[in-house]
């Protein structure tokens, strides 16, 4: 059962990568169809294991991350009809889902139970924001690559495979909104949980808190600059790629 959606994600990944890297001309449904099927299946599995109280441990969170990425990419696809983003999203989805399925006892009972609604929502939103920032990174990377193609005045095959600068910049903008909102909400819930648990809004472990603050400040600054100084294009793309380093750092210390 678990393996089935991992395989569906694998099929979708192959289709996306084939179109992106090998200039394939597969119709969109070949990539999107298995993804939707895998996503629905995984959703059902989450619902089932949630009801029977089986969902615990690291595996579940990795699996949730895959599910969230799939959801975000499907939303972006519905809006922009660009499969190129999937060339980045699907490998991540497949690796996360596959690794979580391979973990022993991923769907059984685990010891590291996340207790309480606050903590669970905090972690869920944190995953949402991390997934958003990953897609933001991918969009920014594609922007830089496409801009480079155009700038070179001798554009090659990538010109055709990647979306237009306009779409990529718009994608960058929209994902930034959502990712930042998720991150902010996650941090608020996290500090509320810390308050209820430890009696303080903020635990004082700098190793754990500093990357979060950096991430929030980084994307916050980018958002402010986009809104007030109408940052666009290359500058914004490079900045979003740089800020993703903070996200990786934050993920590393929290997992």
């Amino acid at each position: 059962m678990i393996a089935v959606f991992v395989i569906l994600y694998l099929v979708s990944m192959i289709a996306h990568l084939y179109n992106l890297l090998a200039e394939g001309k597969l119709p969109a449904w070949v990539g999107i169809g298995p993804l939707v099927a895998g996503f629905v299946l995984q959703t059902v599995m989450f619902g089932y294991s949630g009801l029977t109280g089986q969902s615990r441990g690291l595996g579940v969170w990795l699996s949730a991350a895959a599910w969230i990425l799939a959801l975000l990419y499907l939303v972006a696809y519905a809006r922009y009809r660009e499969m190129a983003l999937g060339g980045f999203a699907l490998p991540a989805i497949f690796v996360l889902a596959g690794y979580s399925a391979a973990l022993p006892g991923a769907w059984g009972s685990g010891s590291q139970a996340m207790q309480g609604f606050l903590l669970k929502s905090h972690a869920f939103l944190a995953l949402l924001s991390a997934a958003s920032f990953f897609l933001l990174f991918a969009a920014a990377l594609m922007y830089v690559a496409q801009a480079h193609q155009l700038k070179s005045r001798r554009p090659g095959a990538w010109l055709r495979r990647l979306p237009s600068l306009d779409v990529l910049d718009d994608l960058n903008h929209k994902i930034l909104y959502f990712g930042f909102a998720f991150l902010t909400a996650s941090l608020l819930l996290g500090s509320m949980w810390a308050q209820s648990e430890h009696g303080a809004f903020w635990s004082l472990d700098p190793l754990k808190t500093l990357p979060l603050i950096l991430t929030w400040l980084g994307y916050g600054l980018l958002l402010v600059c986009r809104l007030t100084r109408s940052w666009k294009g290359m500058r914004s793309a490079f900045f979003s790629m740089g800020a993703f380093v903070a996200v990786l750092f934050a993920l590393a210390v929290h997992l």
Partner: protein
Amino acid sequence: MPIILAGVSHHRTPLEVRERLFFAPDAMPEWLDRLGRYNGLEERLILSTCNRVEVYSSAESFEAGVDAIRSFLSEAREVAAETLRRHLYVLRDEEAMRHLFLVASSLDSMVVGEPQILGQVKEAYRLAQENGHAGKNLASLFARAFQVAKKVRERTAIGEAPVSVSSAAVDLAKKIFGGMEGRTVLLLGAGEMAELAARHLAAQGASAILVANRTLARAQELAQALGGRAVDYQNITAELAAADIVIASTGAPHIVLDRGRVASALELRRDRPMFLIDIAVPRDVDPGVNELENVYLYDIDDLQSVVSANLKGREKEAEQGRLIVEEELRSFLRRRKAEELSRTFAAIRVQAEAFRERELTKTLNRLPGLDEKERQALEAMTRAIVNKLLHHPFAHLREMAAEQADEKTIEFVQRLFGLEPGAIELPPPGPDDKA
């Protein structure tokens, strides 16, 4: 019934000959009627474009059909028989079908992948069909050709990359700005190629077209033609900042847009990208402008190199397309063969049934004393003999048809059973004759 193709195309025949053989589309029904008055052609269709003139036909006899087409072309277009002999290519059956599939898929075109040819083939077929010149042979052949063309277009990128300078510019603009809706285009100078590119962009939805030219009258004239607005050539700072796309084509002997001017326009644009197309020789835009962030500058050489790269890319896609054509051709030939075989089987059965009934009636008339049961037994016996006799050859032929039977084999079978080759029309294939 052989399919015949006779024609000339840009590959081997110079324009002087092609233009003499050209048939104007308005008069096509009359030309087809005239061709129909030549004996020996069952069905006929004329495909006439600037690059090719081809007659597709099905005929009782290949030689007589070719003669009819030759006489028609030479008499109708007053072309010497000698000229025709030198230029006309004549293809039959499989070769003719392959040629049509390649033509319809734009793999035989001068600019491979150009989209017009399929429409022209469809139009030629429509004219032949509506005027009663295309029967079932051409119908199934052309229906398949349209399918093949669609498949080639869908499965390869043959028609995707643009192969003219102005459409390459529009294509690049789309890769920068996505859609053209709401974009502003500024023309510096009013050259012909600039006008063409501007028309393309306007057709894609560019909302404002500004024209700046040294002589204001020409700017106004062009602006009116494009539905845009003429602006002052000496003072275009504000317009430059508003322009997403600039097409420069002035006759000025020096740089018109230097780095400083573009940089200050960018300042006002706040990071919004700008696409500068410099098609002037000598160049209008300082090449250093391309180093500025969010600016994409293409001169005429750049655009031409994009075009030639795209042409090379099309060649690569064309190879893929030819493979698809071969695959489709084989499947079409297999289907035709199976259909021909089914028709042959059905005709043999009809003939055998006729013999059986005739002989049975004769016998029954000679034996008036038989009762109903005995008559039925005789009837059943004759039926069984016919079926048993035909069973083995049919089964064997079906096996052969799946592998190597060609038209010759089928003709041989028809002769063997005393049927006239190629003349089998009756009856439609029966349910048990599906090969």
